[in-house]
């Protein structure tokens, strides 16, 4: 066998193609179940690693603070609001579009909720009003992009300014305080406290799980992937690609409405700036979590973890003993590092 190279010139060798093929196939075929799981969920596992790594660095920096539950609780109270929009944003990015109008939709829907509650109606009614507002605004934004054929980047940015402007014109900067809100049933169900756990966390986890299932196992989720991947193919096979695109924008409207309502539940107050601060962290979470910027693939769970990471940066930086001036730097650092990590993680097939 070792003389293979010598014998080539002497006698004609027989080429055993089957042996070569068996050999090559064997290396692929022996993937264990565990390995396959890792490969299938690479982006989500990657963003979990980023989070764990970041937490470890914080914990080493200041073990006293990061071994206490209270610091995590502080993050958990605010996290649900941003998660409600991050998850639908994964859908929009997967379908190949972007939505920058969600902060204003959060503001508008929260406003609708606050006005209904202020007028003396039950918060449940306010919730319905907020959802209706969110769905309607999502439809308008989606219509502009899908049927009026505007670039989603510019059109949604424009809508964000316009809607926020409307809020400011109408309220002249005045907020709405709802001091009676914590006494309501709705508050106890949606934002109460259950054994030290803020209830909004339970609701948002439910939301994330259901949305993840829809993303991966529902006809709508499948079509979101396919339209983002190859719209021509989708259309050829009879999928109404405009409808699918429009639906993702309406879905963001729904998420923004829930975010708006939960923001009011947490603060008992609606501000005209409500939602504004979520624009960049919300978008960053989607990509930090491992959803591909080019459309067609993404992960709801990964992006939810991404939202957790991004929300934790501020608390973490301050908790570790650095001044608030460091926060922005660390935002940027984590975003860049995550993207570099996913770059190696995500393969773009053409």
């Amino acid at each position, binding site marked *: 066998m070792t003389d293979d190279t010598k014998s080539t010139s002497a006698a004609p060798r027989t080429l055993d193609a089957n042996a070569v093929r068996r050999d090559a196939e064997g290396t*692929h075929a022996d993937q264990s179940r565990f390995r396959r799981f890792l490969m299938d969920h690479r982006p989500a596992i990657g963003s979990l690693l980023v989070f764990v790594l970041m937490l470890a660095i914080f914990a080493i920096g200041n073990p006293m603070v990061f071994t206490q539950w209270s610091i995590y609780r502080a993050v958990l109270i605010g996290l649900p609001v941003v998660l409600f929009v991050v998850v639908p944003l994964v859908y929009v990015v997967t379908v190949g579009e972007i939505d920058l109008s969600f902060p204003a939709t959060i503001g508008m829907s929260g406003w609708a909720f606050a006005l209904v509650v202020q007028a003396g109606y039950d918060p449940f009614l306010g919730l319905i009003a907020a959802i209706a507002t969110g769905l309607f605004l999502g439809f308008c934004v989606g219509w502009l992009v899908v049927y009026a054929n505007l670039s989603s980047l510019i059109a949604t940015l424009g809508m964000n300014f316009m809607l926020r402007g409307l809020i400011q014109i109408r309220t002249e900067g005045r907020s709405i305080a709802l001091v009676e809100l914590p006494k309501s049933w709705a508050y106890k169900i949606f934002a109460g406290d259950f054994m030290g756990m803020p209830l909004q966390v339970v609701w948002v986890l439910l939301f994330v799980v259901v949305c993840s299932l829809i993303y991966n196992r*529902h006809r709508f989720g*499948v079509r979101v*992937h*396919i339209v983002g*991947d*190859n719209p021509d193919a989708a259309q050829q096979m009879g999928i109404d690609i405009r409808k699918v695109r429009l639906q993702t924008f309406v879905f963001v409207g729904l998420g923004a409405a829930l975010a708006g309502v939960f923001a009011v539940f947490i603060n008992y107050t609606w501000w005209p700036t409500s939602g504004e601060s979520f624009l960049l962290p919300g978008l960053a979470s989607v990509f930090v979590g491992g959803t591909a910027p080019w459309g067609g693939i993404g992960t709801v769970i990964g992006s939810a973890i991404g939202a957790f990471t991004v929300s934790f940066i501020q608390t973490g930086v301050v908790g570790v003993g650095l001044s608030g001036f460091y926060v922005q730097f660390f935002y940027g650092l984590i975003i860049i590092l995550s993207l570099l990590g996913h770059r190696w993680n995500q393969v*773009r097939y*053409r």
Partner: protein
Amino acid sequence: MSDRIIELKNIKKSYGQVYALGGVDLHVDQGEVVGLVGDNGAGKSTLIKILAGAVAPTTGEILVRGKPVTGWNAEKSRAAGIETVFQDRALAVQQTITWNIFMGREIVGPLGFLRVRKQREEASRLMREIGFTSKVFGPNSIVGQLSGGERQGVAIARAIYNQADLIILDEPTTALSLTETAKVFHFVEQARAAGRSILFIGHNIHHVYDISDRFVVLDRGRLAAQITKAELGSAEALIKFMEELAHPAEIEAALHSGARA
């Protein structure tokens, strides 16, 4: 008497003053592979588009299983069981084989959730039907990891799932390697064995000759010949015929004598 899936009679298609097709007859029977050949501009793509219902013929008659159809369009073409596989354009390459096969026609249970297991089993069955089996790839493999020939296999499997009786393959072997081409041939043969018909369009006459039972040669919008493999005898005969269509014999002779002199 074999079952005639579709028959086109005296199809004409003009774009303004220009005739793309000037009266073409074509029929495809159950379980046969028809090779459609012709030079560029012969009217092959126009004919395919008419079959797919994407383009309406100016005049002419279309019969599906012997019955004349009026108002022919894409919907009626699909209802007649005709599926066109355009090369490399109709797949979502970042998704799994299963998702591609069921694109637009997902098997869903209550509330629109996928019946994941049923889809996987059905995908495996379809892949087996055309002999598209491998230890390396399964129904959950990403299409982007497949080679060109295997991607054609996915497209063929999808066409079969969509109840296609006639699968139109538009240049499926262009830009494919030797082994990849063999794979596509294998899929085509398996599909025929399962009773499907194939209309195979290609520029490589050797490929078309090897796989087809019958040949339709188009030339400048007209039917130049309809001939079976037995009548033709060899690929060279077909190539010679097509060369003579392109250059009449005397010009050809002049060219050759010129080269010798």
